[in-house]
Structures are given as structure tokens and as C-alpha cells.
């Protein structure tokens, strides 16, 4: 490049190849028809008793290849590449839906087996083989998650208020960074932390509901902080200034103006955070353990929770195993219903009460 100091003269300039405005293009229905053909071919293979996964894969590959070769011939390589990428990107999305659908179908299919009255009203005390229920585990899950929320929500919201309304300088930067880092703490490490903390006071082998709540709080606090922070930042500064101009002290401004404006968003965030931790297993396995009977006192020994219950029913079933496995799936189904319901509630809250300031 540097050797090129002379001004180029028109005749030795390379010509940019002339591109005609029009060029061949696939008929409008080409892609849909090819897709239909591929799907039919896939179905044919399925009828011939191939596994569904292979049928889908071959159909997708067949479609991509056909469209590529056809388009390359008629439309040129740039357009053909574009079409291939479109096919790949779309199949990637569909591929990701596969596990979601499969998980839901499996859980619903296997989980309905034990959705009866006994399941919701009885505990597992003295149950061998069939029967038994998860009443104790439902209560345990609710109590422990409730306690975790009780710890996390005030701490999380106050921290977010500090970061948005007060925090300046190094401390705020550290907190922001470590809240981010905290979101990545493995849940089992949170469980170990709770165990290590309480072991110092209660000695080895301690298991309590409150320990589970502490472990879940470690996981929940950063989610609450993040969500609240986002919402507080959305509150327009004019609102704060209007209150300051009326000589309202800062803390009252935050309490009476800022928080109410952001309330719907914060509620959404908290609900999602609860949904995130209510299905946790590992920390509860470490910190709370499992029990067969009712224990609703989080400060006194082991409690049952849905997730840990499901785990133990699955890994150590009785003889015959079917009743245990049914209970495991039904507990899992119940768990997924709770989580999905919480997610739905969160979306509804944010949809219905969204502040009008958002674009």
C-alpha cells in the first residue's frame, strides 16, 4: 500500500465487475415447497421406523442442501449462503425447543400418576411401598423459600437503593462487581457455606430448615439486587428532582416517590427470584436433608422439601420401585407447576402494572 504513491490513471484501474440489477431468483414458493418435501420425506422415514431424531435431522439437512444447491445455481453463491444461514439459524431455534417440549411432556406424562388427594394431604411417615404424600415437603419448601425471601428481599432492595440512590465511588463499584460475581456462585457451594457457618455453632452433622433458607438467600440476593437496580434506574430523574424541589427529604423521596413508581418491576423481579430458588435441590440436600414426617419448625432439625424429596425417591426407591418413582415424578411435576406459575405471575405483574415511562 505504501508503495502506491503515484496517482492511478483511469486506464490501469481495476474495474469493479458490473452487476446487473436483475438476476435469476427462486420461484416464490420454492423454499416452502422444498420444506414441505423435506418434512414429508422425514415423515416417510418415520413410518419406516427410523428414530424421530434421525428423521428430523435428515429432513433438516435435506432441506438445507437442496435449497443451497438450487439457489446457488439460480441465484449465485451469496444468496445461497444467505439461505443456508437462515435455515441453520431457524433449525437451531427449533432444536432448542426440543428439550423444552420433551421435558414438559415427560414430566406431565409421568407426574400425573400420583396427583390424588392422598398425595397432597399425607406425609411419608411409616409409608413403605404405595401411598404416601408430599404434604410435609410442600410445607417445607414453602417455609424455607419464604424465609429465604424474608432475608433476601430487604437486603436486596436496600442494596439496590444504595447502588442507585446513594452509592458513589469505590464501595459502590465493588458491590456492583461482587453482586455480579455472586450470581455465579454454584448452588452447592451456597449449601456448603450454610453448613460451614452453622457447624461452627451447632457442631458436625447439623441440619436445619433455616440453614437452607440462608443458602437460598446467598443465591437469591444478587437476583433481587439486579432486578431492583434495573427498575430504580428506570424511574425518571425528574420525579426525584420534583420532590427535592418541594423540600422533601431524600429518604422520604425514595420511600414515597421512587419505590412506589418502581414497585411493579420490583415485584416482578422478586417473584422471578423466588421462582429461581424454589426449585433448588443441591443446597437443601446439604443443609436441610430429608425427613419422612411433618416438621414445620425451621430451627429444629431436618425438614422435607419437594426437590430433595423427588431426588431421594428417585435414587433410592423401595422394592418394587414403581411407587417411589411415581412419587418422584409427581413431586417434580408439582415443582414445575409452581415454578411456571410464579413465572406467569411475574410476567402478568410486569405487564399489568408496568410504569408508563417505559418506551
Amino acid at each position: 500500500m505504501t508503495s502506491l504513491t503515484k496517482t492511478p490513471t483511469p486506464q490501469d484501474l481495476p474495474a469493479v465487475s458490473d452487476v446487473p440489477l436483475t438476476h435469476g431468483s427462486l420461484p416464490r414458493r420454492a423454499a416452502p415447497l422444498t420444506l414441505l418435501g423435506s418434512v414429508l420425506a422425514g415423515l416417510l422415514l418415520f413410518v419406516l421406523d427410523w428414530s424421530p431424531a434421525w428423521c428430523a435431522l435428515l429432513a433438516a439437512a435435506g432441506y438445507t442442501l437442496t435449497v443451497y444447491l438450487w439457489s446457488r445455481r439460480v441465484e449465485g453463491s451469496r444468496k445461497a449462503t444467505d439461505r443456508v444461514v437462515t435455515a441453520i439459524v431457524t433449525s437451531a431455534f427449533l432444536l432448542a425447543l426440543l428439550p423444552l417440549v420433551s421435558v414438559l411432556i415427560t414430566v406431565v406424562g409421568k407426574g400425573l400418576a400420583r396427583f390424588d388427594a392422598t398425595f397432597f394431604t399425607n406425609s411419608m411417615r411409616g409409608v413403605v411401598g404405595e401411598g404416601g404424600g408430599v404434604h410435609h415437603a410442600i410445607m417445607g419448601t414453602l417455609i424455607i423459600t419464604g424465609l429465604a425471601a424474608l432475608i433476601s428481599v430487604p437486603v436486596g432492595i436496600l442494596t439496590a437503593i444504595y447502588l442507585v440512590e446513594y452509592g458513589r465511588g469505590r464501595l459502590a463499584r465493588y458491590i456492583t462487581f461482587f453482586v455480579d460475581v455472586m450470581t455465579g456462585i454454584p448452588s452447592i457451594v451456597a449449601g456448603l457455606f450454610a453448613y460451614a457457618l452453622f457447624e461452627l455453632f451447632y457442631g458436625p452433622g447439623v441440619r436445619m430448615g433455616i440453614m437452607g433458607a440462608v443458602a437460598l438467600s446467598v443465591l437469591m440476593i444478587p437476583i433481587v439486587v439486579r432486578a431492583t437496580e434495573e427498575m430504580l434506574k428506570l424511574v425518571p430523574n425528574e420525579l426525584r428532582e420534583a420532590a427535592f424541589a418541594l423540600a422533601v427529604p431524600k429518604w422520604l423521596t425514595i420511600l414515597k416517590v421512587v419505590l412506589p413508581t418502581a414497585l411493579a418491576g420490583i415485584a416482578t423481579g422478586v417473584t422471578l427470584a423466588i421462582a429461581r430458588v424454589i426449585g433448588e435441590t443441591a443446597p437443601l440436600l446439604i443443609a436441610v436433608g430429608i425427613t419422612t414426617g411433618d416438621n414445620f419448625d425451621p430451627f429444629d432439625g431436618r425438614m422435607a422439601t419437594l426437590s430433595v424429596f423427588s431426588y431421594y425417591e428417585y435414587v433410592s426407591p423401595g422394592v418394587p420401585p414403581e411407587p417411589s418413582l411415581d412419587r418422584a415424578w409427581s413431586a417434580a411435576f408439582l415443582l414445575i407447576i409452581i415454578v411456571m406459575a410464579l413465572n406467569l405471575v411475574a410476567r402478568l405483574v410486569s405487564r399489568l402494572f408496568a410504569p408508563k415511562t417505559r418506551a
Partner: protein
Amino acid sequence: MRKGQTVPPTSERTRTRGAPLSLGDRLFAGSATGAGVLILLVLAGVAAFLVAEAWPALTASEDEIPGGEGLVLYIWPLLLGTLLSATLALLMAAPLAVAIALFVTHYAPRRLAAPLGYIIDLLAAVPSIIYGLWGFSVLAPQTVSPSGWLAENLGWIPFFAGPASSTGRTMLTAAIVLAVMILPIITAVIREAFLQTPRLHEEASWALGATRWEMIRLSVLPFGRSSMIGGSMLGLGRALGETMAVAIVLSVSADAFSFNLISSSNVATIAANIALKFPESSGVAVNVLIASGLVLFVVTLLVNMGARAVINRRREFSGAN
């Protein structure tokens, strides 16, 4: 009032500095600051208590440690198992996440972007225990015959040396389950970045006569590059620490690490090992497990700090534009 927002007017600053604050203000500011500091303390506490509880394992003699070969040789294969499963999961999930984020932001109709993103987010809402059960009872059986094929035809590659497991509870299955679990996390970060690609840069590409894919290559991918890296690292951090799914899916029967992905004798991951052994352990064995948890904590901490640093750098970069 953080970076990028307006500095409060000087009059307010002098007032708050000169006059004593009201009691309400001091209490409120104090408790807010206190909550922030508490978080730092908790994080420090996690590290401190884990070290305190791991200490007996560090000082114990070799034959007190399960396995009888000392702490390092106990944790090392577990660490390798953790890294192998997480890396494998990342290799599967990351390209898929980029493709999904592209689909949601640039291929699907704009109006559908939010609902489609929500569907992918639902993957993240499924509790890990359920992924474990699903992986064990649905996915694992599906992998048996492909694994057999791999062992037969590609057995010369160490990964597929075989003999293929007859239950499908292999490292490969565990990694697939992990990939499904971290997919929504990576996708969310990348999707966010892709959505923020400046319209100006996209239009610059269109105006040059780019096809959609060329536009994405010229504008969207370069803009989202650090988010792709950061999001992948976040996903990696999550995969490293994921416990229940691996504990349920993986059939653990070996003490020595191997690269064989499709056999039935696998070494566990650190997290799964803790979940499997902790409930029945006592004495030094508990301290050993906590020591392994400490190692896991440090590894995920490093990965997550790296990820955040990369993502934050992009934030500054795009802010400057």
C-alpha cells in the same frame, strides 16, 4: 447517581455536606449502605467459612482422606471431570446460543422477538432436578445406539474409545443435559447485545448491498463479540457448578479420569460428588468435600470474574460510541 448520570447540583452537595442530615436520612442511608456492605461480608464469609471447614482436610494425613492418596489426588480427577463436562457443554451450547439469539433478534418477525425470547427463558426456569430426571429417563436411553455406533466406527478417537455404556448414563449425556441448561443463560446475554446493535451500523451494511447474512457478519457479530465471549464464560461458570443434573445422570464408578465420553465408568464432577457423598459422610470426609467445594468456588469465581470483565468492557466500548 452513577457514572454517566448527571452530577447533583453543587448547591445540593454543599447542603448535604454542611448541614447535619435529618435522623430519617441518616438511618435510611445507613441501612442501605449496611445492606451493600453485608453482601460483601457474605461473599467474604463464604470464602472464610469454607476455608475454615476445609482446613482439617488440608492438614489431615494421607490415609485419612477417602481413597487414601491424599487430598490433591482426591480432588484432581474430580476437577478434570468437572472441566471436561463443562467444556463439552459449552462447545455444544455456545454456537447454538449465537444462532438462537440471531433467530430471535434478526430472523423472526420483530413482534415475536420478545415472546420467543421468553420461551427460551423458560428453559432456564426448569429446576435442575427435573433436568436430571429427564436426562436419566429420556435422554440417556436415546444415546445408547448412537454411542454404540461411535464406539464401533470412531473408536480410534480417545473420546469414543468405548465400550459404549448400555444405560447411556455417560459423560456425553451429562454434557448434553448441561448444554441444555446453560443455553438460555448464554442466549440471554447474546440476545441483549444483538438487540442493541446500532441501527446505523446495520443500515450501513444494507446500503452497501449486503445480504442479511452479510449484514450480520459486518455489523451484528462484531458488535456482539465480547458479549458472545462473556455470555459463554457465564454459561461455563454455571456448567462447572451444576450439581443435581450431573449427579443423577452420570453413572459414577471410576476414580481415574479419562477422556472416554461414552463409557459407563466415569469420574464424577466436584459438585455431583459432593451431592452424592455429603449426606452419608462424617468426620474428615466432610472436610474433604468442603475442600473440594472450595476448589470449585475458586474456579467458578475466576471464570465469572473474567466473564463480567469482558462483558463490562463491551459496555464501556459501546458507551463511547
